[in-house]
């Protein structure tokens, strides 16, 4: 029982790509939607945005960063192993209707989610400019894939070890100031990045969509854990999102809420790491 991993590929030391057999999800998935998985019986439910799908093969691509106990356990699984639960596609697809020229901004592992959106826009004939940012060269992912679907691509690293040095908002601001007329900017990455992207685009009045990834449990509109304040109203990322109008999102509140279980998560991560270390030692 479970959902079989048919392909596993490390994209960098902390980010892994997996193709998972989930035909019902693959049949329906669209860019911008997410799935919820549970690695094993005692596992927590975590949301991961769909990074791609193959409707014929019945597989869904996920790309995740190893940040906590659950992603660590997920990364220990190999091709042929099964994930206990895998449900979706959840949330609303990214709205792309009528867009002619878009700047897609991705940060870190958020690029994995931004790519299918960029690809969808490209395939429908929209002009796509992409700006992708990473901490350093070692963490760079999906550069070639972005190249294929973008007429312009800028790669940024925080330390300048690859591409241009600096944050993603620098080339975004330049492009807008140089007269690029974007119908929309779609920003997907860490909350702090999306907050600063919005700070730039708001100044120039360029409509901006952000993809929110709050803590979730059921993901189907039952528990209310994923609530956000958008335009002063309570919204639920699982059924109202995950995409929202960036100008309206209360990012500071979202950042605070995201840190609620930090201590628990750090502790769980360390325990999981110790567990795997012990297994390795006893195997040796």
């Amino acid at each position, binding site marked *: 029982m479970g959902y079989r991993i048919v392909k596993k590929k490390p994209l960098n030391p902390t980010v892994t790509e997996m193709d998972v057999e989930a035909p*019902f*999800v693959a049949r*329906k998935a669209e860019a911008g939607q997410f799935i919820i998985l*549970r690695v094993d019986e*005692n*596992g*927590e*439910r975590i949301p991961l945005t769909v990074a791609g799908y193959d409707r014929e093969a019945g597989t869904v691509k996920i790309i995740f960063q190893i940040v906590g*106990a*659950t992603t660590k356990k997920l990364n220990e699984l190999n091709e042929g192993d099964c994930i*206990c*639960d*895998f*449900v*979706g*596609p*959840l949330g609303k697809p990214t709205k792309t209707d009528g867009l002619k020229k878009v700047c897609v901004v991705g940060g870190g592992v958020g690029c994995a989610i931004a790519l299918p959106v960029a690809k969808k826009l490209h395939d429908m004939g929209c002009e796509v400019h992409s700006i992708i940012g990473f901490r350093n060269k070692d963490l760079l992912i999906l550069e070639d894939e972005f190249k294929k679907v973008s007429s312009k691509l800028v790669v940024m690293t925080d330390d300048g070890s690859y591409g241009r040095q600096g944050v993603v908002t620098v080339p975004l601001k330049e492009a807008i100031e140089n007269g690029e007329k974007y119908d929309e900017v779609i920003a997907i990455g860490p909350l702090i990045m999306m907050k600063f992207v919005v700070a730039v685009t708001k100044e120039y009045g360029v409509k901006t969509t952000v993809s929110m990834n709050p803590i979730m*449990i*059921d993901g*189907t*509109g*039952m*528990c*209310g*854990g994923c*609530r*956000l*304040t958008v335009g002063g109203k*309570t919204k*639920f990322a699982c*059924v109202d999102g995950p995409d929202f109008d960036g100008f309206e999102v*209360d990012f500071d*509140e979202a950042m*605070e*809420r995201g*840190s*609620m*279980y*930090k201590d*628990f*998560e750090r502790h*769980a991560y360390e325990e999981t790491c110790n567990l795997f270390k012990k297994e390795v030692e006893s195997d040796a």
Partner: protein
Amino acid sequence: MPNMSLKKNEMPVQSAEKRAHNFKEVALGYTAETAIDEAARCLNCKNMPCVAGCPVNINIPGFISHVKNGEFEKAYQVIAESSSLPAVCGRVCPQETQCECKCVRAIKGEPVGIGRLERFVADYHNEHCTDSTKAPKQNGHKVAVVGSGPSGLTCAGDLAKKGYKVTVFEALHKAGGVLVYGIPEFRLPKAIVEKEVSALTDLGVDIETNMVIGKTLTVDEIFEMGYEAVFIGSGAGLPRFMGIEGESLKGVYSANEFLTRNNLMKSYNPDSSTPIMHAHKVAVIGGGNVAMDAARTALRLGAEKVYIIYRRSMEEIPARKEEVEHAVEEGIEFHLLCNPTRILGYENADDRRDPKNGSVIGIECVKMELGEPDESGRRRPVVIPDSEFTIDLDCVIMAIGTSPNPLIKSTTPGLEVTKHGGLVVNEETGETTKKGVYAGGDAVTGAATVILAMGAGKTAATAIDDYLSKK
């Protein structure tokens, strides 16, 4: 000779001091002797007023007569004619507003302990019955049931017994709906729910978990797959919040989230990977069963103080009487005739990176008094001016109800909803505005009880059978 004692036989329970620190079931159940003694209090009235109070019309004097004679399995068979989940209903039904309030014995003294007897009989059956249910001969018709809560399980069971091939689609990873994610172990052990679910699979019902109808599959696609009728029992939806300041602070939960973390995800168990806040001082807002469940769960997770804040008085509190009594015994404090006005958060202006920033530190409330009755007939609570006071807290749980889930409605053309968002049905049959689609439970009524949902599942099963046998 009937037993003329004015009082019910008491239900043995774990002591309040002990149970406040564990998740084991509070009530321990009658022994055979006590059950027979309690059954002897029933006068076996000819006009059976109790039956009229039961949403599924169990032949109550009938089953109690068997208990009187020590024929417990026969008693079970009588209940099973009308109810598919007796072990569940014996535990969670609000008997005091249903069967027991109609009991003749209640005119002078306490009513017969019908709920306690139902529970005894169901537990006896589960413990002693060895012959497993056989799947009946199939009639060749396929029916889909959306949701595996009380209405879905009942509808699926009734149809399977009639020979239909039933598939239940469940959104979560485990079947049982609110019986699993909502009602805590100490009130309804999960082993009982699992037993009910496996009884269904023995009848030949397929249960498909991780299927979100409206997303993974639409109702129209279910028909395309060859199902001839669909029952929607998808339950209540998104939690309501009050719309006051501070509801997004760290430490504010909806009861649904708090209970789901603990019940479905087992976060009380150290082996579980799902975190939950082990708060010191907790306030639960609301007075229903869900509020009691959340408060008593917080207590068991180690809280020193747990408050219920409810805007009306003890008279109007909607929770089951026994749950309120148990909560009081366990030391939950009730702030009645109070309403929150804002939730207070920690803010260190000198250090924006202080991890405590944005955490709950208290709640501000106003005192209320009861005014004229409102449309529900209950007296409307009115704010007493200048009565603000605050309580120090680190956790607030909102248990003030839910609004319907939009997923199925928004993806099913032809399905009409009321202005509150509940599915429109013919009450006699459970038929929705879309041909071949039936619905029941909280998806129709908004948050209600297990037994009402079960009743709706039964009604729909009968109507679906009528519809398909005429087809």
